[in-house]
């Protein structure tokens, strides 16, 4: 898929009205590690897979999911440096909102600001679109639990479940099969782990780490890391589930 002469600058439309540079930036996200966001009965979970591309890497570092505020979290998918740029902007926006309005910015406000920022980089030839999709999850008393995903084009939507990265097809089919609204966060952990494991089915021999965070009724409605032992259990159970599915086939 080459855009011939219309794909060299983000300030150029193709004859069909496409902006190829934005589509290429989205490709960068599509080729990267999978990130999932899911709204459950009692909270929101964000999950990401991290490939340990070297044995020399330190364990449980090199995060992809960050806090923007006590009750707001952001997961980065795609090129991490670009994602971190967006993260810094989101933190600044959130802080400024709190200064102005004395309440924390909820996801629907924050995602709007972040989306505008991301979109701005798709309008000028002197810069390039971000090669990163970001997920924002939050809780506040007025709006409850919220989950948004912002794409490199600047598009943003609210979701009850969303995913991006290499394994997005696998995750989307799992979303259709299972109604996460009926599960508590604790129960859903297994299925999140299952999706993250299936996402790298072709690269089974490599080592992966899983990062999961949640905001739930049970953890004080704050954005925190899921305890490591819960993640480990979920991964173990997920591996068993996958084996059973494969035997079933």
């Amino acid at each position, binding site marked *: *898929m*080459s*855009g011939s002469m219309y*794909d*060299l*600058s*983000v300030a150029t439309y193709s004859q069909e009205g496409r902006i*190829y*540079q934005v589509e*290429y*930036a*989205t*490709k*960068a*996200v*599509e*080729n990267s590690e999978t990130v999932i966001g899911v709204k459950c009965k009692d909270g929101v979970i964000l999950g990401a897979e991290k490939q340990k591309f*070297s*044995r*020399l*890497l*330190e364990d449980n*570092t*090199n995060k992809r999911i960050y806090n923007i505020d006590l009750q707001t979290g952001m997961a980065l998918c795609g*090129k*991490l*440096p*670009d994602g*971190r*740029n967006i993260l*810094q902007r989101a933190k600044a926006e959130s802080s400024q909102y709190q200064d102005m309005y004395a309440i924390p910015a909820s996801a629907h406000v924050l995602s709007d600001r972040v989306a505008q920022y991301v979109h701005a*980089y798709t309008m000028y*030839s*002197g*810069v*390039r*679109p*971000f*090669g990163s999709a970001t997920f924002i999850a939050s809780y506040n008393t007025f709006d409850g639990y919220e989950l948004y995903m912002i794409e490199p084009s600047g598009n943003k939507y609210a979701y009850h479940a969303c995913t991006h990265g290499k394994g997005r097809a696998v995750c989307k089919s799992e979303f259709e099969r299972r109604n996460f609204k009926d599960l508590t966060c604790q129960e859903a952990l297994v299925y999140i782990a299952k999706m993250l494991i299936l996402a790298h089915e072709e690269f089974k021999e490599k080592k992966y780490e899983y990062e999961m965070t949640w905001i739930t009724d049970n953890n004080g409605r704050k954005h925190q890391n899921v305890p490591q032992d819960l993640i480990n259990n979920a991964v173990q159970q997920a591996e068993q589930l996958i084996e059973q599915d494969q035997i079933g086939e």
Partner: protein
Amino acid sequence: MLKHLYDTDCVTWSPQGKLFQVEYAMEAVKQGSICLGLKSNENVVLCSLKRQPSELAGYQEKQFKIDDHMAIAIAGLTADARVLCKYMRTECLEYKYTYESHHPVGRLVFKVAEKSQHKTQSGAKRPYGVGLLVAGIDPNGVHLFETCPSGNYYEYKCQAIGSRSQAARTYFESWFHLFEKSTLEQLILHGLSAIKKAIMEDEELNEKNVEVGILGKNLKFTHLNAQELKDYIAKLETFSPNSQIQQE
């Protein structure tokens, strides 16, 4: 694929979703001479091979102290490294002035990564052509980070970057399980052994072309002097990781 269309500036994505200019900047790191870092529970050691532009010239320094508790080793464009080094030193000083304590290592690396990323997103700029190994100790523990021109950074148990660094990484993969409990002396000897794997056949390690920097929980960053380097290089003859296993 018509690579040449998409690889002239940082603001053009290729059809496969790659930024070629950033990838080319990473090549500059691979051209620099090797530097490596390794850590135990108490210490971090940085070793580098210095290059001499000509017989009449001195050797290019590769390790710079950022603060008492932090130092970097560089591979790539030295001039770009100087900019980052100055930035890190200023940040540490300001932090010390404001908070009267040492700048947490991870946060400074995050700032450097952020700065590097900004240079990859404008048509008028170019990425930094240097990779840093940042060694530091703070209340969170002993750290070794690698930063890249792309703005990515990773925390490692041990890592080697620069020319012929794969040989050193292979040495690390075989022996890194010993590093956690190693003494400072063993760590230095491991570092020098790893560098030895990466030198050319006609070269040899001596106190002029090797640079070793050490950092510990109670040890401010220092370079080994010429005599100490000579002694350690001499000890290399009789050092083998196997002997360390037998001791434990």
